[in-house]
């Protein structure tokens, strides 16, 4: 056989195998290292700190777990959240993440390694990303071979779509969930391939871990049944499928019901019905197979008809009945918003107000996946070539995840693994074809048939070609040749038909083509690496608690206003002082300032949030009774107008108004916050409702004085603030951070003489009471 370049001949197969496995291990280790290292930008550029908002709650819960033990954590009722309602934390969260950190923490402390719990939390996500790379390797190995697996591991290790959720400090459920997703899928594929109850059980165990760790477990709950269903519909039912699915579903579902937050959902809610239904269907199909093997085919036809019809009718009736009786929960809003992107905006503004629930923009696909976006379809198409059971899985996964990633930004995360797998399959096929030294033999027309059949299957020149492939491929090749002869469709066909009349030996001649293609691929990979590094370092590694800017001399200047204010609250206010803020900052206040909050990022009570929204958007006189009723001592607002921090509360204000309007449509109206021209303004043209709102007043209180007579400029909205700033009668400025980003106000107590605070203030300032006005009520407003 001619080769394009010389191969060493004096190597024993054992040596080759050993070397290959050593190289694989080393490569996997390096990939793990790269995966961890590329997530450490945040720690190196800033510090070992918990990022964003949700992670602060996870971190706080983990601290409780680490310091008080698991049972205390399980029964933890947090009276400081959702004041005055409180939150049963143990029953309303996915404990997998905290339990993982807790186990690591206790393990390290058992061997006397006093690692701070914060550092464990910060570094958990990078650590698990290394495991994800390994799991993806195993998964892809099942799809194609080890080399594709290594490529997939490398992709998932550094792809920004995954890094965005797993940089050091991003201590969120997704940090471990993607690993669990991939390992569960791998075990499922393995179980399906081998018909192994053991692997089915392992898949169920990891599924349980996933249920305990992330709400996105529903993705697995629906993906595996879907795969099974498709297999049945394609007539690929086998005992392997039956064993794998039954062991996974039975054990996995029972295990998942042990998580308190999930409880009986797996048998009640519609999201889980698919899994249950497929389980039932599998039993029926298996039973049918059993019956078929025992009775004649005519009887079987009859039996099938009656059986299927009666079971179908019974099942449907039971489903309707259960839904009607309310035992099966109705479809939730978040579920609807998956199908109808406009649904949330219309009916549940609180879901729509979260930026990560927005539909994905096209550029973010490229930003998160770069050239994998182009390789991904190729990889999926290559899966059609062999179309084994596991390839079907990848195809289904790709279709479903692509749809969801288009609907919600955060679901890009579930798409990323399959993109990596499919792209790795595509790229490794390409490399296999072009690195393979075999050259097609220059044959006469008579021998061309055999030549084509051996070479035209580039996917099969791996370690173990399956016995069926040569036959099928040669059949295909024949067909293709025949088709090409009739209608020259592609360029290669034309070229092939022009050189010889019959089917040609396919393959690559010479080194030049090989080198060109391989070089090109290497360039693409290199660009991919540099793109990933750039995106990770510049876009995804900012803790958002700490803002970075640069000094005139180029050195880094850190804007640390959030922590300044939170720490002030923690050190200088009474421990039971209730802090009101918009829900975004609830977890951070609880974590850093350690004070009770009205609402936080666990947005379970829409009315409570709407109450805060109403207080923020109405005038002082209206808001004051609300504040007093909720025992609010301090109000915290975020104001970026001085230094141009655009994520501030004035920019989020419309959402507060909308959410409040959803509950009190008579008292809060969104249109009244716009100018008559329909613009959202904070300058002289701002509407009266806007200028009287608590939020506006608190943001701009004494802001004008800072400019000492010059025209005050809001740097975020690029508008000039009115010359006369707002005054506050019911609130006192308690603290303002260095760059004015965080402003904290204290709610005044009722006047000790029983006047309302407005007139008390006016009296204190020496203003005469106007006779024309009706006398103020001499009673405190409660």
């Amino acid at each position: 056989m001619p080769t394009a370049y010389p191969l060493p001949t004096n190597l024993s197969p054992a040596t080759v195998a050993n070397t290959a496995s050593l190289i694989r291990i080393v490569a996997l280790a390096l990939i793990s290292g790269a995966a961890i290292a590329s997530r450490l930008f945040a720690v190196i550029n800033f510090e070992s700190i918990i990022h964003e908002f949700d992670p602060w709650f996870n971190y706080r819960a983990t601290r409780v777990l680490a310091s008080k033990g698991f049972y205390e954590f399980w029964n933890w009722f947090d009276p400081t959240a959702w004041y005055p309602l409180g939150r049963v934390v143990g029953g309303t969260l996915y404990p997998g993440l905290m339990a993982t950190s807790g186990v690591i923490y206790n393990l390290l402390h058992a061997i006397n390694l006093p690692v701070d719990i914060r550092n464990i939390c910060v570094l958990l996500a990078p650590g698990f990303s290394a495991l994800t790379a390994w799991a993806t390797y195993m998964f892809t190995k099942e799809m194609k071979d080890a080399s594709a697996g290594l490529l997939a591991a490398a992709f998932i290790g550094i792809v920004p779509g995954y890094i965005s959720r797993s940089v050091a400090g991003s201590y969120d459920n997704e940090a471990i969930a993607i690993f669990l997703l991939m390992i569960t899928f791998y075990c499922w594929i393995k179980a399906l391939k081998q018909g192994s109850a053991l692997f089915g059980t392992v898949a169920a165990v990891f599924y349980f871990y996933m249920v305990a760790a992330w709400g996105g477990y529903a993705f697995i709950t629906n993906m595996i049944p879907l795969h099974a269903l498709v297999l049945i519909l394609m007539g690929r039912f086998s005992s392997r499928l039956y064993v794998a699915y039954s062991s996974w579903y039975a054990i996995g579902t029972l295990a998942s019901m042990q998580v308190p937050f999930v409880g009986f959902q797996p048998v009640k809610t519609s999201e889980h019905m698919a899994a249950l239904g497929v389980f039932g269907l599998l039993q029926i199909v298996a039973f049918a197979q059993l019956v078929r093997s025992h009775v004649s085919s005519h009887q079987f036809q009859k039996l099938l008809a009656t059986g299927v019809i009666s079971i179908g009718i019974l099942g449907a009736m039971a489903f309707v009945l259960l839904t009607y009786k309310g035992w099966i929960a109705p479809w939730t809003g978040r579920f609807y918003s998956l199908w109808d992107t406009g649904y949330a905006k219309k009916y549940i503004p609180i879901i729509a107000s979260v930026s990560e629930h927005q539909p994905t923009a096209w550029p973010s696909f490229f930003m998160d996946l770069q050239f994998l976006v182009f390789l991904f379809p190729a990889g999926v198409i290559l899966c059609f070539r062999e179309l084994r059971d596991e390839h079907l899985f990848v195809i289904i996964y790709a279709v479903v995840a692509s749809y969801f990633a288009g609907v919600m930004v955060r679901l890009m995360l579930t798409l990323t693994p399959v993109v990596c797998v499919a792209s790795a399959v595509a790229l490794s096929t390409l490399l296999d074809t072009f690195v393979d030294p075999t050259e097609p033999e220059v044959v006469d027309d008579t021998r061309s048939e055999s030549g084509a059949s051996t070479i035209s299957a580039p996917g099969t020149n791996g370690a173990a070609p399956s016995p069926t492939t040569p036959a099928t491929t040669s059949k295909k090749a024949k067909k293709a040749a025949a088709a090409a002869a009739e209608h020259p469709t592609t360029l290669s066909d034309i070229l092939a038909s022009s050189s010889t009349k019959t089917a040609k030996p396919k393959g690559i001649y010479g080194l030049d083509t090989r080198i060109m293609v391989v070089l090109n691929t290497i360039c693409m990979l290199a660009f991919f690496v540099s793109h990933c590094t750039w995106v990770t370092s510049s876009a995804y590694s900012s803790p958002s608690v700490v803002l970075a800017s640069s000094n005139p001399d180029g050195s880094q200047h850190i804007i640390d206003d959030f922590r300044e204010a939170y720490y002030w609250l923690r050190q200088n206010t009474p421990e039971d002082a209730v802090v009101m803020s918009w829900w975004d900052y609830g977890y951070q206040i609880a974590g850093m300032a350690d004070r009770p909050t009205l609402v936080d990022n666990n947005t379970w009570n829409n009315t409570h949030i709407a109450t805060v929204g109403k207080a923020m958007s109405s005038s002082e006189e209206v808001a004051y009774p609300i504040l007093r009723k909720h025992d609010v001592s301090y109000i915290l607002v975020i104001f970026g107008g001085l230094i141009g921090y655009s994520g501030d509360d004035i920019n989020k204000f419309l959402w507060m108004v909308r959410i409040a309007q959803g509950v009190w449509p008579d008292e809060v109206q969104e249109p009244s916050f716009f100018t008559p021209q329909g613009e959202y303004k904070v300058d002289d043209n701002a509407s009266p409702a806007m200028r009287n709102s608590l939020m506006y007043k608190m943001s701009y209180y004494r802001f004008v004085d800072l400019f000492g007579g010059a025209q005050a400029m809001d740097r975020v909205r690029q508008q000039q603030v009115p010359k006369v700033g707002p005054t506050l009668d019911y609130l006192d400025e308690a603290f303002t951070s260095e760059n004015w980003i965080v402003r904290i106000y204290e709610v005044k107590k009722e006047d000790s003489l029983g006047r309302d605070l407005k007139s008390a203030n006016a009296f204190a300032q020496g203003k005469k009471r106007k006779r024309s006005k009706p006398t103020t009520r001499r009673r405190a407003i409660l």
Partner: protein
Amino acid sequence: MHQRRCKVVCAMHIHGAVNNFLYSASFLNPLNWVKEKLVPSIREKPSQEEVEASKKQAAKEGNRSVFEATPGPLVRQARGKWGLAIPVKKGVHVPNKPHKPRPTAHKYSTANFKISHRKLNMLGRQIAGKPVDYAILQMQFSEKRASSRIMNMLATAKDHAVRYKRLSEPKLVVAESWVSKGPRGPKRLEPRGRGHFGIRTHPNSKLTVVLKEGKTVEEQKKEERARKIRKIVSAAATREDVPIRNPSPTSLGAAVHSEQLWKLAESKFQSFENTAIVRTVELGGSVVHVTTTYAIKATQPGAKVYTIALGLEEKQKTSWLEVKVKGQQTPLDVVHYPLDTSRNFQLLDVALPDVLSLNSTLNLVLETLQTHATFPWPKQASQKEDQALKYQTDLFVLSPYHTGVQRTKVKAPTPRVISYTTPENLQDFTLDAPASKQGATVTYGPYSDIPTSSNNKFIKEHQQPITVHYFHEQPVLEISKLTRTAEISHWGANLNIQDNLVLHNAGPTLKGHFSRLEHQSQSYFKRPAPHALPALTLHLPPGIRNTYYYDLIGNVSTSRLRIAPAAPKNQRASRYSVLELRPRYPILGGWNYTFTLGWDAPLSDSAVYDRSTGKYIVEVPIMTPIPGAVVNSAEVSIVLPEGATGVEFAPPFPAVANRISTHTTYLDSMGRPMLTFEYENLTIMHAQSIFVSYKVPLAAHLRKPFVVGVAFFSVFALAIVGRRINLTIHQKTL
């Protein structure tokens, strides 16, 4: 670099072929670095014999260093006729030239050049008295025309002084410099307007300097610093260079003998008379410095124990106390009398350095630091208002002896004293005004002819409180709680010190609320509120690494650190690493701030190995001096290496409580001994060191690597066994 190379040479000599550690090679060779890091002991200085022995060995092997090969100045080897070395006989006197007196000064001057003596004289005055290098520096950057010439002359003069006169270069100062007029050239006419004319002279002059050995810049700075420190009560400077003694413990066992002691004491009381007592109170924030000078006269021969009395309240406030003879440095021994609640005062016995004969006199100085002696008044102040404090003390200095004349001076930090008490009913002691204020000082007295005052009768009849109300312009700081943990690691050659501090602003609490606008405009106009603390400057040891400053929610990014290099071996550190520590928010009156500050220091800077006893001695500072602050309670823990035995410690002053416990960390298998000391009311004077000595056997050093190694290998062994166990139920027949 030069020094480092010397070290290398020394190391080669010391260890020779036996023990081939190189200091600087570690920068090139990772193996050597590992070796160096893994040496568990502190490198101690080799004795003279060892050095000699290794030199001999090196000579034998023929690899002496070039420095050793150069012949010494005296033992010059004479060469014989045949080129053979003739050993110099012992006792042969090498004849020297008769000694000239060693020159002490070098005089040098410029040539006459064209300049006015007046212009030149300005430069002369500028450099006179300066160290020569500093003078050269001044001339280098001077804008005067003659400066470059003077600079060159100075450089030449310095060179000559060093070469010809063998004067010590670093000590050279420009002792004198003067200008003399040179010959004047012919005058010229200068035509002016309107037929007038002027006469131009063309002056010539020269500058002469005399270089002598004087005080170096360092010495001058040191003196300057000492002078300043002497002035400062509580502001931003440390007094660590003053040796400090603390009152020895009031032993509880002595209570049995208290009556005997009292009787004994009372019998001695008559042997002295106070000619004069002057008490100076230097007011501050949380720390007040009181200096009392007793001019005493012995009324009986052979007196050697003088007794000092302190009021009960004063005693409680006093956190540090020292008695010296005026003008001397060594503190005298002080014995406290047991506390007796029936008496309103406390007595201390001071052992005089010499026995005093009849009518001989001596001046004793009692220095005390009082903490929590002031309080803010009014108790609240808004952001714009001033900060005023009140200080209260007793009018009379008590003494068991008759006092001729007594005076109390209360010095406020600024002349802005709001009010002070004018005592009444003092006709027995003075006829003038009992109190007067001049500038920042309020003077009480002189009061003359005061009888023995350390008795309840006098206190009841005459003693009265005086209060001074004054403005204070620095924030009043308190450290409510200081927890220091010092961890000694021999493997890392590291002393890690970590402080947890709870900082509290004890000034007037903030009235109303904090307005950022107000704060920003105050700092913009450079008129910060006197009770707001925006930042704190701390002096940390030189040569520290990995300094960290964080609080409960993470790193505090607003601080700056300037690290001074480590001091050379056997020298006292003269420079400090300066940490400009900014809390997250300015600390206003009544606000709190907790934070953690820690650093790693090379163990060799604070530890020595005593070869004779085989013990390590480590010096651990009790606290980092925080200017003007008082530490209400401190807990200092010292974690010794694992397996340390024979632990002894020497605190500089007795602790309120101390204990030893076990601390387990970093893969320890048996834990480390931990010493804990508790203190109260520490001031800047208490920033001293605890000395701890202990032994660490080699087995203890090797314990950890052994345990970790065994653990690793057992994991591997388990894995090896585990791989070979087959758990399959159905053996596949394939």
